[in-house]
């Protein structure tokens, strides 16, 4: 450029650059940047539009929302006449209470309804950092007690409902919540044990436990819970199916959470531990007051990701026949009136699981950003 100017010749007039700002500029930069990018945009755009249109057509435009009642319950003939061209949402209208609450007595289903609301309120309160204090623990214990009282009943006007009649979303939430609440202290102990240098026996036991559980699928533990547990117990004592599955989930979650906690312990500088010892704190006081608060804060994002994993994994209890959300959905489909409308039910189930997991995942993401900002200060 400088050569052209010094020679005194008028530089060739360049055309003004094409729009780089505004909507056109944005499109140019982000969708039609190069030939390859343009081709990709057009091809993908076509597929997306076709798919979205097909889905809207199926799910909304041609969908059947209600069906008339026949002599033996709902009559899905209209749906069947669609031959899959439109969704049959009537199956949800007919079965939603069953999918959400399983075999819980129909007139009492407001009770599991309240429990679900309590669970969600509890999660929401715990997500708020302003509530991260000792009182939260009491709130948890109190709410969980209320939830169990409501589910079981058997006092005042509430009729007793044994837990083999519970089902649907409350079971999923109970399995996930209790699994984590019980697995967390276990995980901390195991993580501490695995890092202990002075107690080789404890360390070996912890390593064996973690590696054994992480090496096998959850299914095999659930089978163990449903088949072997009765063999391990003294004769006559037979804990119910839900409790057995819960124990399996706790053992499983404990091993995975222990690894996450261990990562936090390892990331903490050694000086923290040495400084605490220099102050003369005992092992447990050092761990409780200095180490754990810092180590756990480091691993909150991976912890939440692990929680999401367990929330999804509770659906595996389907295989040993416990009535969680997924099982209730599958059983609802076994109703001869509604066979063949599985896609609709599965989509709704997916939406419910998605809402819970997506909320946790967004939360974890936001927390990660804030913690990173706090660390960078």
């Amino acid at each position, binding site marked *: 450029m400088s050569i052209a100017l010094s020679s005194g010749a008028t530089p060739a007039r360049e055309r003004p650059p094409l729009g780089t700002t505004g909507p056109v500029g944005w499109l140019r*930069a*982000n*969708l039609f*940047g190069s030939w390859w*990018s343009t081709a*990709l*945009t057009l091809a*993908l*755009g076509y597929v*997306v539009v076709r798919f979205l249109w097909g889905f809207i057509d199926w799910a909304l435009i041609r969908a059947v929302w209600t069906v008339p009642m026949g002599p033996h319950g709902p009559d899905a003939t209209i749906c069947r006449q669609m031959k*899959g061209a439109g969704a049959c949402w009537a199956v949800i209208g007919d079965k939603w209470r069953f999918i959400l609450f399983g075999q819980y007595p129909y007139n009492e289903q407001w009770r599991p309804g309240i429990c679900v609301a309590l669970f969600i309120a509890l999660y929401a309160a715990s997500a708020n950092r302003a509530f991260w204090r000792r009182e939260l623990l009491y709130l948890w214990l109190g709410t969980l007690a209320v939830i169990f009282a409501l589910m079981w009943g058997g006092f005042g006007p509430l009729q007793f409902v044994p837990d083999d009649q519970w089902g649907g979303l409350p079971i999923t939430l109970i399995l996930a919540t209790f699994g984590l609440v019980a697995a967390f202290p276990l995980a901390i102990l195991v993580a501490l044990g695995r890092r202990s240098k*002075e*107690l*080789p*026996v*404890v360390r070996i*036991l912890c390593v064996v436990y973690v590696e*054994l559980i*992480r*090496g*096998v*699928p*959850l*299914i*095999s533990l659930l*089978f*163990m819970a449903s*088949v*072997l547990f*009765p*063999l*391990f*117990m*003294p*004769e006559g004592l037979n804990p119910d199916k839900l409790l057995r599955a819960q124990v399996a989930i706790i053992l499983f979650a404990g091993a995975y959470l222990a690894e996450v906690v261990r990562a936090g312990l390892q990331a903490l500088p050694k000086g923290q531990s040495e400084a605490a010892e220099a102050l003369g704190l005992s092992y447990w006081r050092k761990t409780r007051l200095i180490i754990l608060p810092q180590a756990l804060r480091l691993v909150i994002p991976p912890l939440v990701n692990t929680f*999401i994993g367990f929330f*999804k*994994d509770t*659906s*595996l209890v*389907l*295989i040993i026949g416990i009535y969680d959300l*997924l099982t209730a959905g*599958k059983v609802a489909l076994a109703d001869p009136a509604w066979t*063949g409308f*599985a*896609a609709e039910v*599965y989509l709704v*189930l*997916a939406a419910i*699981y*998605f809402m819970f*997991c*997506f909320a946790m*995942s967004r939360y974890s993401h936001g927390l990660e950003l804030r913690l990173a900002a706090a660390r960078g200060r």
Partner: protein
Amino acid sequence: MSHAAGDPRLIGAQQAPRKPWRLSWSDPRTRNVVWQVVVIGAVGAVLWYLIGNTNRNLAARHIATGFGFLGRTAGIPIGEQPIPYNSATDTFAKALLEGILNTLKVAVVGIILATIWGTLIGIGRTSRNWLVARLTAIYVETLRDIPVLLQLLFWYTLLQGLPAPRQAMRLGSIFLSNRGIKIPVLVWSGAYSWAVLGGVLGIGLTVVWARWAKRRRDETGSAPPVWPVALGLIIGLPVLIWALLGAPHVVDAPALHGFNFVGGATITPEYAALLLGLSIYTAAYIAEIVRSGIQSVPHGQWEAAGALGLRRGTVLRMVVLPQALRVIIPPMTSQYLNLTKNSSLAVAIGYQDIVSIANTTLNQTGQAIEGIAIIMAVYLVISLSISLFMNWYNARMALVER
């Protein structure tokens, strides 16, 4: 430790004299020993109690423990047989072997598919094309937040909802129906065995050639071509052998006869659903790993490579991905392990993997402990093998520091 002796800060410092071990509660060593003895005692007592209960229960139910049942005739019908199996005569051991092979069949193919698909999605997430970046982000966010079991059931329902064989969807001589996917296969003949042998030889020669080419590039700076030679050796050589042996090609194509197909090979709906569900689900996780790996490479690497005149695709392939691999491999290992363990969900859609067959076995024989021990042992061995392989690969790819 070895260089600590020469550390100037330590000159003059003396190691604290070790106190003699006192048999008192105030000596930490005594406490440690006591606690460990207590722990061993507690664990031992719990085990003793459980084993005692189990023995009593087994005796009460007249179940004899041991693996003797493995030699008995199984009588479990198996739809998916990697090796020939006859349910009337073959033993439980053989049935379980079929299960193990079926698990491996899903795990190996699933890992390959999930890696390819996940890498593509992960690269897509870093794309400058807005549509590609958005769509892949939606893919990852959605699929990670839905239980894999639900996804498997969904795919299985879709595949079962395909039309019956008579109205099968047709793609050339591939048929899609509710009996699965029918594909044409070549009738095996001696020439193919020789061609496969040629292919193996070709791979070996390619490795030798690539080593030589690398050494030559290091020495002289001029790089002999590798890809054309590799193509010629790995594909050309087998084709040549096959052609020289008379180029036999008898295609066994599926055809509709009455209500079902004859000929061809079948991918059962169960296998297809399991493979599809597991790879699509795991790919979402792999995509995130690949994305974070790519983003972990400093931006200066992109810019420097761009300054050398490399195109974006070339930069990605030659500069960024090799560096990203170091970040990618360790978490990838745990995804491979997850996929393998999730293949046990096969039991929910009726694919006969090891869990499914061991479960049937323990229901038929009542050998619950042995059945579950077999499942666990199989998965532990598979998990350990994958870990060992990935650790070896990781060590190979790790940055060699001078």
